[in-house]
């Protein structure tokens, strides 16, 4: 049995061979993160390619959700948390972690979808319209157009167009999650962050969300944390394996799942871990 209690020895996390079709959308550079004195992320370097799906996999507590939450500065909400290093957002080359960059501004450019659907206790329409109003839009017809666009983008429009004023809680779990995706899309984000978006859903609803992710990547860049390795294999273009706050291996999803370079990645994805 492979024992992986020792501190991992990460490989040089080099990007795969440059591909003419790949454009950098974001990039973590020497990123460290601390919960108080506890170092949860250790020197993460990783490219995020534009209009591609990047999956973060690893055992519980490896830091993948912590890493995801750095992207929209969610850790700012709690005292004692501290970032080191940078997350660069392109093409404007903004450091998302810089104290000079407003966290609210960051969250408009990078939306997040959570594990459990968390619609607001409002109507379906208002759930989506909220993000548009936050962006400063006041004209009702423009808001209506954007709501429809976002609901169509989340593959929910046909199911809810006749009951937009119903309470969002009346939707099924899968529909609620797609509503949350529509809410995330309404703010016209550049990157959508998914934190285990299907772990509370049944297989059919999961398949809908995965199909949706495949469609969404035509428009936005996607970063997804998942415990389901087959899901990472199905939906992502690139995969990063994390363990104990370090990025052990990053590469094209096909390569990671057929021929991983690092024995620790191999042990994890083949179920030999620990």
């Amino acid at each position: 049995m492979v024992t992986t209690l020792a501190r991992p020895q990460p490989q040089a996390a080099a990007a795969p061979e440059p591909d003419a079709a790949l454009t950098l959308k974001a990039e973590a550079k020497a990123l460290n993160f601390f919960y108080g004195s506890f170092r949860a992320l250790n020197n993460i370097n990783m490219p995020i390619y534009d209009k591609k799906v990047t999956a973060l996999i690893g055992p519980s507590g490896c830091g993948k959700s912590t890493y995801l939450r750095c992207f929209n500065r969610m850790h700012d909400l709690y005292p004692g948390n501290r970032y080191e290093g940078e997350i660069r957002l392109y093409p404007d080359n903004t450091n998302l972690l810089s104290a000079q960059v407003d966290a609210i501004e960051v969250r408009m450019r990078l939306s997040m979808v959570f594990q459990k659907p968390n619609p607001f206790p409002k109507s379906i329409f208002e759930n989506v319209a909220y993000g548009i109003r936050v962006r400063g839009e006041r004209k009702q017809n423009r808001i209506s157009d954007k709501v429809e666009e976002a609901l169509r983008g989340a593959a929910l429009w046909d199911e809810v167009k006749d009951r937009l004023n119903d309470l969002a809680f009346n939707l099924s779990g899968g529909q609620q999650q797609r509503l949350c995706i529509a809410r995330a899309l309404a703010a016209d984000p550049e990157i959508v962050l998914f934190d285990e978006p299907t772990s509370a859903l049944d297989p059919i609803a999961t398949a809908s969300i995965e199909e949706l992710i495949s469609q969404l990547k035509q428009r936005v860049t996607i970063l997804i944390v998942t415990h389901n390795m087959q899901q990472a294999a199905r939906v992502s273009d690139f995969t990063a394996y994390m363990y104990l706050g370090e990025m052990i291996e990053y590469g094209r999803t096909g390569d990671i799942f057929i021929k991983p370079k690092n024995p620790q990645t191999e042990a994890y994805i083949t179920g030999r871990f620990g």
Partner: protein
Amino acid sequence: MNTSEHRNKQFDVDLEDIRTRVLQMGGLVERQILDSIDSFSTGSHDLISRVIDGERDVDTAEKEIDDACAHVVARRQPAASDLRLIMGVSKIVTDLERIGDEAEKIARMARQIHGRGALQIPRFVDIRHAGDLAVRQLRRALDAMARLDPLESEKLIAEDRMIDSEFRGIVRHLITYMMEDPRTISTALEIIWVAKAIERIGDHAKNVAEQVIFIVRGTDVRHVPLDAPAEPGSPG
């Protein structure tokens, strides 16, 4: 190739069962070739029948192993080295089954040649020699599979040329026979078929060795010249 245990022990049992069955099928196929070459030299009706009947067992083994592989894919969703093992095994059993077909072909030729009462079989010794080489190649390929040994596989692939050159030598000699005495043409042509079957067995053994390299290293060495540079990042 990671050979440590899975957390789910039944997965290990399933994979080990598949590997064992492949080696058993390999043993069966090896016996088929040996018997077919012997039947060619002796004309023994018993041996010829045994080879022809044995082909059914080879076919059954292929189908059972393929079925076991499909079950592992459906139930376990194998990845990385486990995925490569299943894919490699699935291809290896196809090659083993085709080796079985070649053995049957040799036995049927033996029945025809001896049935005609050909007293002198030209270049018989060469056929025996090429047959021994092919059996040795298959045995080495199966050993490499059992030990998951890519280095032995590489050596075997390089030596496949020996059987190819034996085959060309046999054909050259038989052409001389046929030119000297046209009465030998029918038998000589059948012997060329036997020689070709042996040459194909060598090719299938080489294919098995290539799959062993894929299973262990994840590199695809099919249709690649031996002196070509290794794929970047391929582990030793």
